[in-house]
């Protein structure tokens, strides 16, 4: 088994699935010849040719619009948007077209496609290379939103996303691209969409998180252990469809919940999880449900490290709910 970074695992997933299924094509700005600005598609054009891995004009709506056309025609397109922050010219194609195609046509036409895009802060990228706007997509029926937190899941989830019959937003935590390594099998294994994983079992507080916040929560759990608090960390992996069973089971078990995300707090996906628990498991709650999130400001530059949730801020929330 190879030890790969998250970035290498994504590259491995793309190659693995492209070898198995000649309907799979991948494209975007700088994706072909140079292998992507982060090098996630490195070597793919060389192995599979310009027909299946290519550079596109600098046009996000063109990239997604073309991907929809390809998916309708029977290919399995994987479109890369260079940064999630640049996706908005394609918003119409994603929200009005890809997400609604199956429903509006009575399932006569479908869009099995993946939109891969790096998201999140921690690389000193300012407003336009740092945002976490997964809630926009989670708010749109018809889309799936998948966010891996480690190399193993990244490969397995991406293969599942490519094989899925519906459009999938695959958000890659760019801060973790090269930050951690893990064992990744060479086979074409899958990690199912819509299934969360309990990364660390615990009994005192449930931390719900995804993407780059998973290692932050794990570190907070370690710090809490020094204070004799046994923290459960749940990595959602897919925010839509949400694994409500795992979320509710954990909330019912611990009775104390903290949700951690990089995205701005107001109307972030944490609010949805909080509401779900309030609607379905209120009687189990021993403390208010708290959120540790980005502030309701545009993403900053110099004070990025202050803006982003860190293990200490998460620990402070853990202490709040345990001392309630």
């Amino acid at each position, binding site marked *: 088994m190879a030890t790969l970074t998250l970035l290498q695992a994504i590259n491995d997933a793309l190659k693995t699935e492209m070898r198995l299924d000649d309907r799979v094509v991948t494209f975007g700005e700088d994706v072909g010849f140079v292998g992507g600005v982060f090098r996630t598609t490195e070597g793919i054009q060389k192995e599979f040719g310009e027909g299946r891995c290519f550079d596109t004009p600098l046009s996000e709506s063109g990239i997604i*619009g073309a991907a929809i056309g390809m998916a309708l025609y029977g290919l399995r397109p994987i479109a890369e948007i260079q940064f999630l922050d640049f996706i908005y010219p394609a918003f119409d194609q994603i929200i009005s077209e890809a997400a609604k195609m199956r*429903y509006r046509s009575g399932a006569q036409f479908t869009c099995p496609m993946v939109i891969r895009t790096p998201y999140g802060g921690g690389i000193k990228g300012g407003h336009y290379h740092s945002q976490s706007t997964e809630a926009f997509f989670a708010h749109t029926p018809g889309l799936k939103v998948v966010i891996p937190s480690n190399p193993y899941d990244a490969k397995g989830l991406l293969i599942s996303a490519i094989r899925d019959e519906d459009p999938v937003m695959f958000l890659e935590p760019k801060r973790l691209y090269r930050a951690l390594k893990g064992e990744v099998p060479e086979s074409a294994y899958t990690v199912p969409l819509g299934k969360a994983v309990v990364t660390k079992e615990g009994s005192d507080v449930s931390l719900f998180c995804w993407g780059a916040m998973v290692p932050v929560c794990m570190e907070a759990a370690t710090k809490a252990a020094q204070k004799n608090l046994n923290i459960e960390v749940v990595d959602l992996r897919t925010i839509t469809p949400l694994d409500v069973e795992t979320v509710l089971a954990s909330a019912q078990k611990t009775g104390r919940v903290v949700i951690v995300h990089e995205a701005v707090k107001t109307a972030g996906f944490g609010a949805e999880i909080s509401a779900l628990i309030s609607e379905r498991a209120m009687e189990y709650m021993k403390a208010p449900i708290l959120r540790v999130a980005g502030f309701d400001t545009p993403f900053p530059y110099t004070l990025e490290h202050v803006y982003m949730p860190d293990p200490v801020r998460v620990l402070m929330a853990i202490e709040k709910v345990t001392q309630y």
Partner: protein
Amino acid sequence: MEIVQILKPDGTLVNSSLEPKLSQEQLKKLYHYMVLTRLMDERGLMMQRQGKIGFYVTSTGQEAIVGGALALEKDDWVFPAYREHAVGLFLGMPLKIFIAQLFGNSEDANKGRQMPNHFAYAPIHYVSISSPIATQVAQAAGAAMAMKLKKQKTVCITYFGDGGTSENDFHAGMNFAGVYKAPCIFYCSNNQYAISVPVEKQTAQQQISEKAKAYGFPGIRVDGNDVLAVYKVVKDAVDRAKRGEGPTLVESYTFRMGPHSSSDDPTRYCPKSKLDEWAKQDPIKRFKAYLINKKLWSEKEDAALIGKIKQEISDVITEVTQAKPPALSTLFEDVYKEMPLTLQWQKEALLEEAKQKGSFKDSSEAFPL
């Protein structure tokens, strides 16, 4: 401005050498679908006025668009806007499917999920229509890229209006198709108005076909009220695409003789003189005169055809209106291939609510646009 025309408004040939070699059967089929479209539109608008359906989009004056459909083959794909009924019907969308879509009932192939005139019909690759303008243009380029990649000898044709050329996705689709030499035909129905906004306020380039130059492929302007000319330019574009020579932009110069939709009143923005002038260019009158000149058609046959089609439309309406509204559970289906648990919960809650309420009152107002 250069424009391809084969039939003069009186139905005589501009130049007999231009006359396409079409069989009697093909010519009559074109005419049949032009008349069907006109009559269906009259009936559709009437049904909207009577409150039987919520909305309707007519294509009156633009029926010659059907000429392009004759240039297509069964594996070609269509990415329509919402004023190409004639193309869909000609290619084989059953009238029953068309009319059921207007009613959005359980016979509707879209399961009542879209407002009238937003058709989709997979057997003829007539891709689902949406209301946002020109999104289909970029998609058509992508499907054409896929055809090329799969080495198919097929084409995509996408339809949009003069207003659509102002949208991002017109640019994106034209640009992508140009770069990848995709087998895509971009068919712009320049009917001179985007709802109330005249084409002069849409673009400073009044010959829309010229825009193709910016993308590195040919553009051609055709008399959009001349069904033979429309057939010819689309056929040439299809042949070119199938030879691997890439896309073509076709500008059909035409005129919307009716409202934008059932909710629009064109007398507020379109001078009557313009309407009168274009009435003389009526594509159906023109083609009928040509067929009569060729001794392929007669007034008697024409009256019989009109009577037959009106009866067929009435019969289908009677049949379709027997159908019930879509079942409540269909509200939740087809969001995803598999229904997520949260959606199952919502479905169960609605079915429970239905038990308590007995029925749901539809108090929606008529659509205002």
